[in-house]
């Protein structure tokens, strides 16, 4: 009798997701996977074009390694503060959650500023989508495409953080909403780990 009632309740009122977390989180993961595959295809294209090219510019003659490392450290640290903020919120420590959330937001804005400076420096050296002084047009085209697409994600992330922060301030956002924002922010960081490796280091 009880089983029948449980099944009836499940059929009429919906039931728990087979993945255990709420559906919002599962669909955020679906979005992250599909977005991740776009980045994977961009990096695959980068790898293929690079290794079929007879030569490739030495990145450390163009970009400053410590500057790129600072950008990486900033983004990785912002993921840490975001994760701490979400967990603090779950534990009911609202003051700490707010502080780390704000730090994450500021780190995101700083990263965007650093990327803008890096782009202006690169453009100043003569790089564009169609050519560059190093003689391999694909190099700058891919650089702008990949880092630009990632930069767009950082901008979206910062906007989401701002909007969710505002909603939370007026008690219109739940812990789950903040957690979704955190998941997206860490994804942006995860993608940067791959970009840092393939575009700058290897």
């Amino acid at each position: 009798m009880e089983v029948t009632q449980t099944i009836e309740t499940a059929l009429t009122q919906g039931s728990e997701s087979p993945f255990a977390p709420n559906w919002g989180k599962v669909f955020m993961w679906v979005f992250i996977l599909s977005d991740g595959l776009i980045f994977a295809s961009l990096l695959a294209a980068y790898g293929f074009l690079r290794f079929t090219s007879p030569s490739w510019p030495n990145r450390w003659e163009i970009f400053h390694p410590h500057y790129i490392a600072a950008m990486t450290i900033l983004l990785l640290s912002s993921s840490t503060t975001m994760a701490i903020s979400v967990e603090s919120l779950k534990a009911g420590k609202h003051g700490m959650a707010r502080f780390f959330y704000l730090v994450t937001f500021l780190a995101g804005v700083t990263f965007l500023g650093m990327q803008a400076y890096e782009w202006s420096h690169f453009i100043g050296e003569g790089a564009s989508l169609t050519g560059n002084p190093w003689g391999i047009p694909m190099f700058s085209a891919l650089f702008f495409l990949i880092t630009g697409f990632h930069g767009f994600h950082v901008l979206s992330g910062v906007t989401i953080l701002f909007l969710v922060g505002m909603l939370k301030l007026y008690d219109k956002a739940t812990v789950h909403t903040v957690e979704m924002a955190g998941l997206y922010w860490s994804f942006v960081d995860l993608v940067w780990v791959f970009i840092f490796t393939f575009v700058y280091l290897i």
Partner: protein
Amino acid sequence: MSDTTIVKKRVFVISWVLLMLLTFAMLAVGTGTAPAHQKNVFILVMMLAQAYLVAFYFMHLRFEKLPLIVSVVFGILLTALLLYGVLIWEGTRIIILTNP
């Protein structure tokens, strides 16, 4: 994460310290003078370690239920491998066909 689990701050701090160490190691090797293939293998291993820390701790995958972990890890790994495999195979074929 199962929605009720609360991860201790210490876990994130340790992950952050490891991420910093990995970043410095990658940078040191990347700008160093070791042979390219050795450098690349080392950097790729470090990159995977970084990706693991971010995905499993900051994105909370470590604390999720197994079906979600399997779906995410195998979903993205298999699709990415397929994508890389097809792209590289097809691209190489085109190059061979256009430059006989």
